[in-house]
């Protein structure tokens, strides 16, 4: 018997919720926001389940929704005036390059597309092909974007735009 949309999406959440949360968490740099976005992603999946035609795998479909939700989030974000570093207890320690907040700040200075490629290729250790599939890009675009991201990260890391640098 076919599953109801609710059961199907609940199953997808059990299978891929962690993977998507981990990625979104790194992209947005905040657990609460990541949770909201993951919730939005699966609610979106539930609402649009009728339109999912199973041409792609559910995982690919979920990653496409993730891409759209993240893009929408950053479109709205220009109203958000608070930076992570403004919250005193979350401020990074610039002396410690292994500090989690420091590394998250390093990620946050990359533009969204570069950040997502950097996270997938460097932190999540995914191949170019897999990254391209998840982003809906070509592998060439992934490689070029990664190259730019690493270049930008290097400038930041070496003190160009580093806090206190």
């Amino acid at each position, binding site marked *: 018997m076919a599953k109801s949309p609710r059961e199907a999406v609940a199953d997808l959440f059990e299978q891929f*919720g962690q993977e998507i949360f981990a990625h979104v968490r790194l992209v947005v740099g905040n657990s609460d926001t990541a*949770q*909201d976005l993951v919730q939005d992603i699966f609610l979106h999946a539930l609402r649009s389940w009728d339109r999912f035609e199973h041409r792609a795998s559910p995982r690919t479909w979920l990653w496409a929704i993730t891409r759209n939700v993240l893009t929408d989030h950053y479109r709205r974000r220009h109203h958000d005036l608070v930076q992570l570093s403004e919250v005193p207890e979350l401020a990074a320690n610039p002396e410690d390059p292994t500090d989690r907040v420091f590394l998250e700040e390093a990620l946050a200075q990359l533009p969204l597309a570069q950040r997502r490629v950097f996270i997938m290729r460097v932190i999540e250790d995914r191949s170019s092909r897999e990254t391209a599939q998840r982003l809906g890009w070509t592998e060439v675009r992934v490689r070029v974007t990664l190259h730019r991201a690493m270049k930008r990260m290097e400038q930041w890391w070496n003190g160009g735009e580093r806090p206190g640098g």
Partner: protein
Amino acid sequence: MEANDPVDKLEMWRRRFRPLTAEILPDPMRDQIRARLAAEPVPTAPRRHHWPKALIPWGSVAAAVIVSVVTLSRLTAPGTALPNFASKASSAAGLAPVLAPTQHVPSNQRVFAPAGPARASLTTPALVGPWVTLGQRVFWLSAQAPTHLRPPMSALPWPRVFRIPHRSPRQAVAVQIGGSLWIARFAYPRYFVWHRRRYRVTPSLRPTHPTLSIGHLGPYAICRLQGVPLSHQVALLSPWAPPLSATVVR
């Protein structure tokens, strides 16, 4: 020494970012998302149906078009008033619309107020106030609203609301729900954004910059709280007239 080969560079960055491991989705968050998925109404719209071209009932289509055109021309004839669907809907619920749906309100938001008192004191345990629809969903704020729209009152923790002094004439407000503090500033009409700060809540808040903005609908501000349990997702604040009122609803 910096690496020059792209592969070496990639490895170098992997080593540097190794401390940034994937965060595990905590169980409370997982449970909350599961609960949210379980509570979300599933769209019941029928699947799109594609008629084979040969089977399209062109006769029926033509008849429907003719009937529509005739009806429309009669309705729009001089001296004929078009039906006011918005006021019909609100009068059916015993409520008077405060704003026309298109007046200062995004198209997917409407505000209605009950005939009775429109505000509740913070210390009053009864929910008295307007109720709001956002898109397809109805958020109730009134004990006078129809019974099926009432929230489970026992499940509602009463929020604490603080004014935050601010340089601009627009006032900022903060709402404490449980251990989280939500701060909002009335800055951008039509937009509302909340930010949850993680510091300890005290009644005498003095942040130098209130953090974020929310929008207002008529005399009220409506705020959506994300990342909180389903029963706390919308807050309605009215900081303009004392007593400062706030109600947290679904």
